[in-house]
């Protein structure tokens, strides 16, 4: 079989060719190469700590891709994804500790339950303009946070829930390396699903709603149903990621699932690029690394003599930098890193005759 190279013009004859993910066979080959690297090289080359960070990246990517389907593709903002992530985490934790459900079904149940909870807050939006969804998810964020802390008999209040070691078919998944495979199997699965949602009927309907809701309705797209669907898929992704996180970290307390986590997710997709699946991956990597960098910086500064008296806490710095990054990207690079990446790629393809 001969490799297809990039044609020098548009020679497509069928719509299927237009919709294909890969323009050339090199894309397919590099994807296979990437998967081999991901599953057979990375887990054996890196230390446990690096894998721990990578696992978090994987989890955040799943949540960020879901949020991007909502914000970037459907044009609806959710400020409640931090809490939705938490709903998934608590659902899985409660199912595992109380009902002794094995962890795989518990994770899926976490995602499904979060989708149902998300729908409650999504209903008002479906009747109204997008800004009402933003406000109702904001309310959802605070109501859910309240439930996490106050419904002590179910969630364990501020003390939270401790989960047992996860096992799959009798194999312990305690180590970071073992869990790496679990997370990245789902990472690949959910990226594949998202990529395919956006290039089918559903994705096109989402984009039509984003670009002009009235026109979309005029063309026969049932807006109410598609908005709810987009919101359900998005909260499913968030809940699933949360459940995966709960099983991995094995301790669920209300602290992480604050309004700030919602902002963190938004920062990920803005940095990565709204309406770009690959962008969400970049964004999640960037934010997780920035978090790591800031905590390293804080501990480094604390060790410098003379600064030890100053109480340097990392939380305000994180908030400041995340806010700053969101603002700068929106003003100067509203299409995010994905656009930069595309430009670099095109300039290589067109070399030496770019322009």
């Amino acid at each position: 079989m001969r490799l297809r190279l990039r044609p020098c013009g548009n020679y497509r004859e069928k719509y299927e060719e237009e919709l294909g993910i890969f323009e050339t066979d090199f894309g397919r080959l590099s994807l296979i190469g990437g998967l081999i690297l991901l599953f057979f090289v990375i887990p054996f080359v890196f230390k446990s700590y690096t894998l721990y960070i990578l696992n978090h990246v994987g989890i955040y990517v799943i949540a960020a891709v879901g949020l991007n389907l909502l914000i970037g593709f459907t044009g609806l903002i959710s400020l409640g994804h931090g809490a939705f992530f938490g709903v998934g985490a608590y659902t899985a934790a409660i199912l595992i500790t109380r009902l002794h459900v094995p962890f795989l079904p518990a994770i899926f149940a976490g995602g499904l339950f979060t989708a149902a909870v998300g729908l409650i807050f999504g209903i008002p939006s479906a009747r109204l303009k997008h800004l009402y969804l933003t406000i109702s998810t904001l309310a959802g964020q605070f109501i859910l946070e309240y439930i996490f802390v106050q419904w002590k008999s179910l969630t364990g209040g501020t003390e939270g829930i401790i989960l047992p070691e996860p096992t799959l078919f009798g194999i312990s998944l305690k180590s970071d390396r073992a869990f790496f495979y679990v997370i990245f199997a789902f990472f690949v699965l959910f990226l594949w699903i998202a990529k395919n949602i956006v290039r089918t009927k559903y994705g096109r309907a989402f984009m039509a709603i984003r670009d002009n809701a009235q026109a979309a309705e005029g063309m026969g797209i049932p807006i109410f149903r598609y908005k709810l669907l987009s919101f359900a898929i998005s909260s499913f992704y968030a809940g699933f990621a949360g459940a995966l996180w709960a099983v991995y970290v094995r301790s669920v307390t209300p602290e992480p699932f604050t309004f700030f986590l919602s902002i963190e997710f938004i920062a990920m997709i803005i940095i990565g690029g709204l309406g770009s699946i690959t962008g969400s991956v970049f964004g999640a990597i960037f934010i997780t690394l920035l978090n790591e960098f800031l905590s390293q910086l804080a501990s480094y500064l604390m060790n410098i003599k003379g600064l030890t008296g100053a109480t340097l806490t990392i939380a305000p710095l994180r908030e400041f930098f995340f806010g700053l990054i969101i603002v700068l990207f929106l003003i100067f690079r509203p299409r995010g890193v994905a656009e930069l990446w595309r430009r670099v790629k095109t300039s290589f393809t067109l070399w030496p005759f770019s322009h």
Partner: protein
Amino acid sequence: MDFLLQLVVQGLSIGCLYALAALGFVMIFKATKVLNFAHGELLAIGAFIFLVLSVWLKLPIYAVFLLTLVGCFLLGFVIERLFLRPMIGEALILIIMLTVGLAAMFKGLLLFIFSGNTFVYPNFLSPHLAFKIGKVIVSPVYTATFLITLAFLVIFGLFFKYSSQGIYMRSVADNQIAALSLGVKVRRVFAISWAIAGLVCAMSGVILGIINGINVHELSKMGLKVFPVVILGGLESIVGAILGGLIIGFIETFVSGYFSTSLRDVVAYIVLVIILMVRPYGLFGLEEIERV
């Protein structure tokens, strides 16, 4: 009975405070259609400028008031110029997310400088403001809150009705394109809306500080509370914002008085979700919403 009366007094002043805060929010929304998620941080900035001037620099109190208000007016102006103006013409969701970013940025900055501790203002209110209704003592803070809110609402009512700038602002809120074609400088109206919102926020931040002491976390939470208030009142309506503020103020005070204080912080959001489901255009909003 005394307890009830105490709650009524408290609810009234908290409600006034919410109304004042919501006024700044509605101002921005009417003119620019932007939901400002950095509202709480604007409150906090005003409150902390007041703190620095009064406690650290020990300026006389009228100078502190004047400088805080002028400072926040200018700050609103600068925020519009630096962050919002480059976004004119971009999709609304990008601008709304920009305000989310601004909120995180300002909050981080304030936490970095002042940390998450609670600060208190020196007591400068005249004790003559206190009075008694039956057995209930109304403390000077509550009287002051009520009077200041009333004064602000009257001033802004007159400003919108009679001043030329107020009329420009109403025209932009009504129909931006028509206003533009009639020669209204829409950009200037945007800038002034943000500046006035900054000023109103500073005022409500300072009053909050007098009542509860100031704390970055509390103030930024308070800013998000304007959402229930404005949704209840209808996003477009200033009268609605005032009544919405009073209603939410009363509900919160009564819930914390008769049920639990922890429920107080979420009850406004529960009301918000119910309102969105039942009567989404609010009590006083325009009913002709785009159904999409």
